[in-house]
């Protein structure tokens, strides 16, 4: 049996290779929140590659989930109000802070950026505290 950490590690390496290819050839940081915001609010000449990246991400990711159904979102009965609140905070927060798990995490840490290291530390701590409150104090699974 394959140890449980093999597929997470392999997936992480694929993500790192994707980010490397985009920086090496196109000179762009693979930050999903920044690319999404750039596609949503277009600047002239800056949008086509963003749409292409997002198309590849969504299509290949969705296709891969059909082969790997165990990685698909499986939760049921989770309150839509929490999904909406989470979405609003993720959208606003990533733009205010200039990045998410990919931009600050995968790319920023790879560049040894102190700014990104601080951002990752802060969002990990608030995410862990929020999960604790939601799951253990409010009792929502």
């Amino acid at each position, binding site marked *: 049996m394959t140890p449980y950490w093999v597929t997470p590690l392999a997936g992480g390496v694929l993500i790192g290779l994707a980010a490397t290819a985009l920086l090496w050839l196109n000179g762009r940081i693979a930050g999903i929140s920044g690319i999404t915001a750039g596609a949503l609010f277009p600047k002239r000449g800056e949008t086509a590659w963003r749409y292409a990246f997002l*198309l590849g991400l969504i299509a290949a990711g*969705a296709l891969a*989930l059909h082969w790997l159904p165990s990685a698909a*979102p499986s939760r049921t009965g989770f309150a839509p109000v929490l999904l909406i609140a989470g979405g609003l905070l993720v959208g606003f*927060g990533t733009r205010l802070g200039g990045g998410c798990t990919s931009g600050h995490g995968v790319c920023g840490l790879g560049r040894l950026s102190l700014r990104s290291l601080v951002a990752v530390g802060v969002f990990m701590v608030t995410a862990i505290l929020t999960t604790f409150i939601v799951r253990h104090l409010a009792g929502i699974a």
Partner: protein
Amino acid sequence: MSRQILVALAAGALFGLGLAVSGMTDPLRILGFLDVTGAFDPSLLFVLGGAVATTALLFRFVLRAPRPPLADQFHLSDSQRIDTRLLGGAALFGIGWGLAGYCPGPALVGLGYGAHEVLWFVPAMLVGMAVHRGRERQAQRASST
């Protein structure tokens, strides 16, 4: 189609494949990592570890080139400023991530898969981005008058 667009398409596809292989597309695995006092699932640590080890190793070689083969320059943020925007933005993002179990990449992949939860999450995320954009433009107008 320009080569730059093809590279973006391929890099996006590889990124999406990586997210699915890593299992980070399931919010229960994200929350299993963030729930350090519950049934802790360390998967995310291996994903981030594998990704950052790869970028930390390869970015150094990539950035030695004077410019990328398909573009005029490397578009990198030179900011080293650690200010309230960075701290507040990261804090709010973390709260939203811990609340729902989705960050932007996995949520978009879920949208393509047809996962019903992200039909709530993704539009709200885009609204959150639009609210930030509106505030910035308002601040720009205020400072220019």
